[in-house]
């Protein structure tokens, strides 16, 4: 029984009680993914599974057999930062940094959802083909990631800059 974490095959724990979060942090020594509340309420433990954002604290590692997990360590490294990591630095998108890995993984998952046309609570027209990354859409879609330091303005600016550059709308239209 195995899964992939940041491209490498890893075996699943023998004890099914191990959460995906504890597998990452305690067994694989990838401490980038953070444990905030351990009950689904903060988003610090957000990772990508086959490109979709999920909470690693609310799931058992064994549920992810055969799946591909990406953590913040898999997105960038010192010297080769992911564009979002760079933008978070430039826009003061953090203070303590505890929520940051979750914010960044979440933002990547969010971009995928927007490209796919997934509606949100603030999407006025449910049947729209394209969703624009307005300020309201971004705040609603990122509301599952809390920031105790209140770095939200920087977080919003950083995400907006990166996905405006990537031209998320053009991709959605393709």
């Amino acid at each position: 029984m195995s899964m992939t974490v940041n491209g490498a095959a890893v075996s699943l724990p023998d004890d099914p009680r191990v959460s995906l979060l504890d597998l990452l942090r305690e067994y694989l020594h990838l401490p980038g993914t953070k444990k905030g509340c351990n009950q689904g309420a903060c988003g610090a433990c957000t990772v990508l599974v086959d490109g979709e954002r999920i909470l690693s604290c609310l799931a058992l590692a064994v549920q992810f057999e055969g799946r591909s997990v990406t953590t913040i360590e898999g997105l960038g490294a010192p010297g080769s930062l992911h564009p979002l990591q760079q933008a978070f630095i430039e826009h003061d998108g953090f203070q303590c940094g505890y929520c940051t890995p979750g914010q960044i993984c979440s933002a990547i998952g969010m971009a995928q959802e927007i490209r796919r046309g997934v509606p949100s609570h603030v999407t006025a027209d449910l049947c729209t083909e394209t969703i624009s990354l307005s300020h309201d859409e971004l705040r609603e879609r990122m509301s599952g990631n809390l920031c105790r330091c209140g770095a939200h303005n920087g977080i919003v600016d950083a995400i907006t800059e990166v996905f405006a550059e990537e031209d998320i709308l053009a991709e959605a239209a393709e």
Partner: protein
Amino acid sequence: MTPFTYSRAADTAEAVRRGTIPQARYLGGGTNLVDLMREEIERPDTLVDVTGLSHEIEELPGGGLRIGAGVRNTAVAEHRSVRSRYPALSRAIVSGASAQIRNMATVGGNLLQRTRCAYFYDEAGQCNKRSPGKGCDALEGFNRNHAILGASPACVAVHPSDMCVALVALDASVHLRGSAGVRHIPLTELHRLPGDQPHVETVLDPGELITAIELPPQPFAARSTYRKVRDRSSYAFALVSVAAALQIEDGHIRDVRIALGGVAHRPWRASRAEEVLRGGPVGAIAFAAAADAELADARPLSDNGFKIELARRTIIAVLGNLAGETA
């Protein structure tokens, strides 16, 4: 967490065979069950992962939809037919939890998620749902989020799901499979009121598996919506919510569906309000009369009297919006 064995079911027959032993539980996304196991409120010794089963959304002949129990909440909300034909359902789902949780949560798990009553989670508290017969600390405690309809002295908790409220308004039904065979029941009959057995939350037999939900064809559901009122504008459970669909013809209400969330131990179909409205005039006076009829039996607890007026206003506002749209 108490130890347990984990396995994935290859098909529904196998799932039911393994799920029918006494301390077994089905596992969907795990977003509620794993949390409750960590708190040792749930202590299964066997987990049967059913996320690999029934994960399709099928168009039914005649215009309905059949949604497999393993379909993720996001996949339901984004489905084209749901968005255009049952918008209240998309709206209800995207108003709940967070995007990450909706990506994990399944339809079956959402239906059977358990209450968020703080005393149910608190091992130091007395809770009839957790330990039958021990009493209910919410009755005289913090009950701001609790029920105003259908509660009992044994339990005043509410069902937390948004999705279920829309489904109940849309006349959804549930497909079940147990060791005695398959059955198909209206969703309004799945969840129980607490009575003197609040720990028995549904009419499911032990080990009975939810395989799918079914939405009947309902042309006027294309004009349906969901409004959720909560303490913050995102990522919070409902204080009160309203799902409704309205059909107006020649200035009269031809047909209507209304359901309420955050007010009772089950998603609350507002049949009395519907009766008052059906065949009658459109307008604020009629909407207020309907809300009053539905809430005539509402009983406040020490901290949640505001919910009665909030529910009343939300019903009137939602019907007003729908009437404006259809006018």
